[in-house]
């Protein structure tokens, strides 16, 4: 990889992100809708007040693994899920660059597949971290306007904050790799968006982003344990609400995420190199 080429291409990608607020809004839209509609409508933990006061903490802990209420538990899930939704556009941009000829120009230059892939991967993974913190701030602010809001009950240390950033970054790297691989191998935007939808929803629905852990059947807990969104969200929940009810420390979940990110990076690198090689 040539640093100058890579940094010039990364700058281009970042400029395109900054100049296209619609892409940023798209990345935020789904998590915000979930927070404002689903999170408010489904904040069932107020009904736990019907239980005798002595039973409430036990019920909360078994259901939500230490989160103070469902909305807080769920909001942490949505903050993690931004790492998926905000990376969708990286693959779409590749397809549009193919259609508009921009990728043809880059491909005809001495830039290598590593320069092209690496620049898009980095630019596409930085944005979700910023958006995740926007969603986190919004989730907290909702509590100040009379709605259910995110209550951080643990003391977030510097290490904890770094773990949160690392979790979102790794999840974004993994999904940016996946969506880039799709973008480089697929020619039609319709096919890409159909595939992305076919990936996103199952990923969300087999993770612990939405469901109270204690309410999930054992088989779904088994699947969710390996889901990268779950791994990222668990890191957030440990650092925001405390890790007493989790079987592992945050770094163990981060290791799992590193494994996912490396595997997807390897597959995406192979597919991108093949797609960008001179056509035989």
């Amino acid at each position: 990889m040539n640093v100058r080429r890579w940094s010039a291409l990364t700058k281009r990608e970042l400029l395109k992100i900054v100049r296209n607020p619609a892409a940023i809004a798209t990345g935020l839209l789904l998590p915000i809708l979930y927070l404002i509609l689903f999170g408010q409508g489904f904040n069932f933990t107020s009904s736990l007040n019907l239980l005798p006061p002595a039973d409430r903490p036990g019920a909360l802990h078994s259901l939500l693994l230490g989160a103070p209420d469902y909305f807080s538990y769920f909001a942490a899930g949505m903050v993690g899920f931004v790492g998926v939704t905000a990376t969708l556009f990286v693959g779409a941009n590749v397809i549009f660059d193919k259609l508009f000829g921009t990728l043809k120009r880059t491909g005809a230059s001495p830039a290598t597949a590593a320069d092209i892939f690496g620049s898009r991967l980095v630019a596409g993974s930085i944005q979700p971290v910023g958006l995740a913190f926007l969603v986190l701030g919004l989730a907290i602010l909702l509590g100040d306007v009379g709605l259910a809001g995110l209550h951080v009950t643990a003391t977030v240390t510097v290490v904890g904050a770094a773990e949160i950033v690392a979790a979102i970054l790794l999840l974004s790297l993994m999904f940016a790799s996946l969506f880039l691989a799709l973008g480089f191998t697929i020619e039609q935007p319709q096919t890409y968006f159909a595939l992305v939808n076919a990936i996103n929803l199952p990923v969300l629905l087999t993770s612990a982003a939405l469901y109270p852990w204690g309410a999930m059947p054992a088989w779904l807990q088994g699947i969710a344990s390996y889901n990268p969104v779950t791994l990222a969200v668990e890191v957030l929940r440990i650092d925001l609400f405390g890790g007493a009810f989790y079987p592992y420390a945050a770094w163990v979940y981060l290791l799992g995420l590193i494994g996912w990110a490396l595997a997807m990076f390897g597959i995406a690198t192979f597919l991108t190199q093949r797609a960008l090689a001179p056509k035989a």
Partner: protein
Amino acid sequence: MPDAVIAEGLTKTFNGSVKAVDGVSFSVKEGEVYGFLGPNGAGKTTTLSMLTAVLGPTSGRATVDGLDVVQHPHELKQRIGLVFQESTADQDLTGRENLELAAALFGVHLRDTPKRVNELLDRLALADSADRLVKTYSGGMRRRLELAVGMIHSPRVLFLDEPTLGLDPQGRAGFWKIVGDLRKETGMTVFLTTHYLDEADGVCDRIAIIDRGKIVAAGTPTELKDRLGGDIVTVRPLGDPATLEPALKALPGVTAVTLQDGTLRVKCPSGDSLIPKVVGAATNLGIGLAGVSLRRPSLDEVFLEFTGREFREDEGPTATDRAVFLTRVQSSRRRLR
């Protein structure tokens, strides 16, 4: 003068059956403007794509500036400039940002980049709009920006793929004047594809006429036109052309007569003086004439001479379009089975 581009038996087959380029061989001298002239689908862009390491050849070999296009694609791309027929500049960036990006990609030294970018912006009359997003540029400005991008690293060989497609005559003339001036200053070699006959005639030092993937004629525009042997008088008789043909062949000065689609094409050194004789011969035989016209030697005539077809009548899908179409048909068939 050494050769800047050498192609030997260059062949490209898509999907194992569509032969877009069929054993093309030619060489381009250093500093020369060499044109590939042919209708859409003739194999021009496919040849150019192989020479610029965008497409790998199925067989044959080619070198550009001494580098084998298959063995040294990376080094090759650093030495050549490429202007595509469509706009490839990033529309969400300004003209200046596009050029700065190209400078980084093609290895222009960081210290020299601002000077080189400003120089090209001035040269191509883009300085006033340099900091505007490319999406606001006109067609002519986009073409000039493409040329600037292709020239950013002062390439030794510049490849132009139908570079004036879609431009009005004034825009085309302006574009070629800039290319001509840049060539004079830098001495670079220019390889261009075009289906504008007048453009090839006016701009190129040498031309290869390509049709259905094969070079059918090559030489300087003058040489090619000289091969026609003079003027062409086209005669459209009202009756059977075969009856008139022997009489025309017998006229003094006529070098050849060919029949195509009911029209007789009569070659002669001077068409002006032959026309009255043609009319006389037809009158003597009692054959009426629907029309007689004189055509001076042109590349249009050269194309007709070497391919047997009018230049425009073969315009259609490109070789790549045909290959994509064929792939889709084949995959549909597979699905149906």
